Every structure is written in C-alpha cells, then in structure tokens.
C-alpha cells in the first residue's frame, strides 16, 4: 500500500470535533459582528490567475501554491483575500453605490518552511471598506477590528501605525533605494544597533528615522515623537492622535498601542496599518490597513481599507479553555421490525434539543457496548411491546462519561 494515501502533506492538517466546533464558533461570532455593522459576505474562487496576486504586491510568488489551468496558464491558490475582493468591487460591483462594505471568511494557502509546525492552510475572516477615506472610514474599520478581538478575549491589544512615517522619514534622510530596503528591515525587526549605524552614514537628516522603531507603546509615544512632529510626519502624527483619542473615547484606551515603526511586509498598504495581538500567542492574529492605490490596479480608482483575522491563531489562543463536546444524550436500539418507531423516537428526542442517534448494532448487547463507547446517557430499546430505557452510565452530568 502506498503510504502517502494514509498521511497528509506537510503544512496540512485535519481538524477534529472540538477544534472544528471552536473554529466555527469564532467564524460565526466574527460574521455576526461584521453583519451587524452592515457588511455583506462574498466568496471568491480559491484558484485565480497568478497575476491577481503578483501584480498587486500581495505575497512573494514563492510563498504561493501554484498550478496550471486547462490552457496551461498559471493559477495561484488564494494566498490573500484582499486582492480578489478588490477585483470584485472594481468589476461586478461597479454600479453599486459606495462605500462598499464587504466581508469574507475563506481559507488562504501560503507555503511555510518545512518542519516549522506552521499550517499552510489557514482561515481568514475580514472586512473591506471600499470607497471611503479619512478618519471616519479609518475609525469604522479600526472599531470593527477591536470589536472582533474583544469578542474573543479581554486580553488583546491593537497596535496602530502609519506606513507614511517610514516613507517620509527615509525620503527626508535621502536614503538610497538599497538602504531604504535595509532600513525598513531593521525597523521591522527593531534592530536598533544596525539601524543606528546605517542612519549614522546619513548624518543629522536621518535622526528621525533612527527614532522610529523606538516609538512604540501607549499614549506616551506621541510625546516621544516630538522630534518628528514637523512637516508631513507631523500631519500623520496629528491624524493618528485623532484616531487614538476617538478609540479611547469608545472605551478601547487600554487596548490600543502605537507603533510608529510598524512597516508591513504586504506592500499594498498606503496609510494607517494595524496589528492585533492576543495574550499568549506568539504572532499577530489580526492585520490590516489602508490601501488607497490597490483599486486603481483594477481600473477603479478608490480609497479602501480593511483587515483580516487569522481564525486559526485565535483558536489556538483559546484552545485550552475549551470544553469538550457533549456526548450523545440517547442511543436508540430496536428490534429489526421497529426501525421506523426507533427513528420516530430519536427525532422526538432531537426535537427536544437532545443529541439522539439510532444504533446500527443487531443485538441489544452490542447496542449496550456501543452506548458505553459513545458515553451516551440513556439507552432506549424499542420493541413491538413498547419502549424501555436504561441508564447507560454516560452523559455529562454523570461525570466520567466521555467514553
């Protein structure tokens, strides 16, 4: 027997029982929050032309799963949801009034290093607000992200930055193209020493850039950023301050952090960027921002912003507090002539909100064993002369009944 058919490729995994229940619960709760805010769901194809992603500065091509279509054109398995949503907004939704409020709940596929214990298939749910700009639009998206995180746990932080800070400061410093990339990497990894020595070569004009990765934390960041509060970066700071104050007023003060050194590795962001953290999880569980240049690539020049939540990351953080699924309340066994009565009984119990199933065993003894194995609370036996029920010893309330 070929061994491969009994295993799954690296990076893929089966989700069972409690894992599914938890994941679906998170997806439903996110969906409810989005729909309550007037967002409507769309589903886009899992397979699209590679160009959808490569021409929109989504992920690097080597992180995508690729295959060929019927005419040998290259397709990519969805690595990111935003480009396809933008495509739909620019094409099929062309005549709809803006702003468009769209949400999705779809799987994305990205290759990871081998042996990294990372899933290549994860579920993202997120929203896109297309056709609106300015503080009102940014607040709407940020508040939606905060509400989504809050629905999961109280131990969360949303971190706020703006890609303009980096671009303005590197322009001010006069960084060469190559050094801009390096500086971006050093800021992203908070490599203070390397950034200092790189910026040192550019003298006084690069002082602001040096400061950037250090400017993270709470409200105090706005004071610490005084040195870069002139010119365009001053405008950005004032804008962020406005967002910070509004979100604080909404009761999210303790959950908002600033990181002016937040530079995204997804290149299409043009303005506000933000990142959500859940306590106890090693990587960000939410990522989003403003991408005002993306829609233009599909022939419809409009501002837009959105975010995606990594549902699997959220599930990982709350896995431990999760209760096991309930065992069945009832197993129904019947004599062979009474099958329809057995199903009638099971359906009645189900109608009462119980989990009830009909045994496939052909003897009462085997059905008794099955009830034990399932951890069912009650075993019903349906015969010509009537229905008997016995306590099968399982069920939640009896304790230890998990089979």
């Amino acid at each position, binding site marked *: 027997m070929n061994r491969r058919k009994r295993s799954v490729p690296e990076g893929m995994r089966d989700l069972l029982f409690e894992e599914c229940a938890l994941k679906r619960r998170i997806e439903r709760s996110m969906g409810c929050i989005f729909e309550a805010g007037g967002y409507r769901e769309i589903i886009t194809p899992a397979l699209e032309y590679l160009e959808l992603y490569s021409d929109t500065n989504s992920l690097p091509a080597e992180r995508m799963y690729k295959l060929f279509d019927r005419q040998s054109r290259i397709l990519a398995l969805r690595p990111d949801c935003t480009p396809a949503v933008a495509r739909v907004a620019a094409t099929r939704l062309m005549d709809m009034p803006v702003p468009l409020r769209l949400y999705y709940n779809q799987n994305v596929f990205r290759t990871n290093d081998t042996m990294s*214990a990372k899933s290549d298939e994860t579920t993202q749910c997120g929203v896109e607000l297309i056709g609106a700009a300015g503080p009102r639009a940014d607040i709407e998206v940020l508040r939606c992200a905060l509400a989504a995180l809050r629905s999961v746990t109280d131990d969360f*932080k949303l*971190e706020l930055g703006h890609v303009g800070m980096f671009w303005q400061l590197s322009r001010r410093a006069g960084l060469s193209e190559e050094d801009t990339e390096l500086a971006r990497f050093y800021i992203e*990894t*908070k*490599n*203070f*020493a*390397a950034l200092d020595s790189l910026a040192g070569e550019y003298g006084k004009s690069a002082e602001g850039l040096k400061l950037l990765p250090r400017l*993270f*934390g709470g409200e105090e960041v706005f004071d610490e950023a005084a040195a870069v509060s002139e010119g365009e970066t001053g405008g950005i700071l004032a804008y962020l301050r406005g967002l910070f104050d509004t979100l604080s007023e909404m009761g999210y003060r303790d959950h908002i*952090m600033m*990181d002016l050194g937040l530079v995204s590795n997804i290149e299409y962001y043009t303005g506000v960027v933000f990142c959500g*953290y859940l*306590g*106890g*999880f*090693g*990587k*960000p569980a939410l990522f989003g921002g403003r991408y005002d240049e993306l829609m233009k690539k599909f022939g419809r020049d409009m501002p837009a912003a959105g975010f995606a939540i990594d549902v699997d990351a959220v599930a990982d953080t709350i896995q431990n507090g999760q209760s096991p699924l309930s065992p069945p309340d009832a197993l129904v066994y019947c004599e062979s002539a009474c099958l329809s009565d057995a199903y009638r009984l099971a359906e009645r119990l189900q109608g009462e909100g119980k989990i009830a199933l009909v045994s496939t065993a052909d003897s009462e003894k085997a059905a008794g064993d099955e009830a034990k194995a399932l951890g069912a609370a009650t075993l019903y036996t349906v015969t010509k002369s009537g229905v008997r029920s016995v306590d099968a010893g399982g069920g939640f309330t009896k304790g230890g009944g998990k089979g």
Partner: protein
Amino acid sequence: MKPLRMALTKGRLERHMVELFSRMGCDCTELTDKGRRLIIALPELGLEVLLAKAADVVTYVEHGVCDLGVVGKDTIMECAKPFYEILDMGFGRCRFAVAGKKGGALRDGYRKLCIATKYPRVAREYFDKKGMDVELIKIEGSVELAPLLGLSDAIVDIVETGATLRENGLEVYEYMQDISARLIVNLTSMKMRKREIERLAAGIRKAVTGI
C-alpha cells in the same frame, strides 16, 4: 507576575551570560550548578532561563514559548525568522568569512566553484549578491575538512582567531560580515510585556556597555 522566559545558547555564549547576570547582581549558582534541570529560575532578574542549541533558541523565541533569547548573529542570519533583534551583546565576536587552501583564490576563471558550509542560506545570499554562481554543500561540523579532502574549493564559516584555518593550511579569502551575540525578542512579547522587557534590556545594556 509571570517571569519572562529567556532561552540561552549553550556553550561559549552561556559562560558570557553567567558572567553578565553576575555583573547585574544576580546569584548564578542555580545556573552554574543546574545538574540535569532544564529550566532554571532567576527570581532576582524576574527571569526563567533555559539552555538550548543556537537554532532552537531562535525557534523557541519565534513561536513565543520563550519571550527572549540570546543567540549569535550567524544563527539569526541562517534562520531568517521573524522576531525583534534589539541589542548587540558585544560578546561572542567573530566574523563570517570565505576561506580555502593557502594560495588559492575565490575566482578561478569561469569554473563553477563548490563551497562547503554549515550556513547554506548565508552563503547563497552572499554569492547571489556578488553575482557568483556557486555549488553549495551542507556540512554539519569541521567544515575545514571539505577543501582539505577535495570535496569543495572553499568554505563559508565563522572565524574567530583564524588559528584552526592556519593550522590546516587554509586562509581567509574574504571577510563577509561581523558577528556577535544578540538579544532577540518574540514579536508579541515585545508588545504585551513592553515595560518588563525594556527594563531588562536596559539592565543588560548597562552591564554590557557601562551606559
């Protein structure tokens, strides 16, 4: 409060860290006489410390099971994982270099060279940048053997004093990059436990540089 958990690289860097913690006023007997214990508490520093191989330090910090780690820049470059690298510890200094048999050269006409290394990613990136097409062979230890046995034309490795190279009739062709130990921090820990990490990092910086 829950202590911060720090992964230290076993061996040479470990001794530097013991000395550093002592300078910070911490009693390190638990750490030096740890026996078979794997996780050691250093309550004076608000730390829980464990010792691991360099590449594992990076893995633990990346996944967030350790908040911080101390590891060489060579391992950081080879692993290329996401985390913050916030402090140059100043010790564990050495350099990445290309080396080969004495009298040889890194270029030999149009012949494609073969390079043996423990650091294939670092080597690949370096030669890509130089526009040199080379063949790489991954070797796990004593890389110096490869050119001596005729398996490779040169090696990419970390060089501290160059004594091993000299004793085996090898020499450095080119220095690539300075290496030293770094303090790395998990992405989420940096944000969720900023104050504690900054306090600790400031203490370490003071002990390392005196300022």
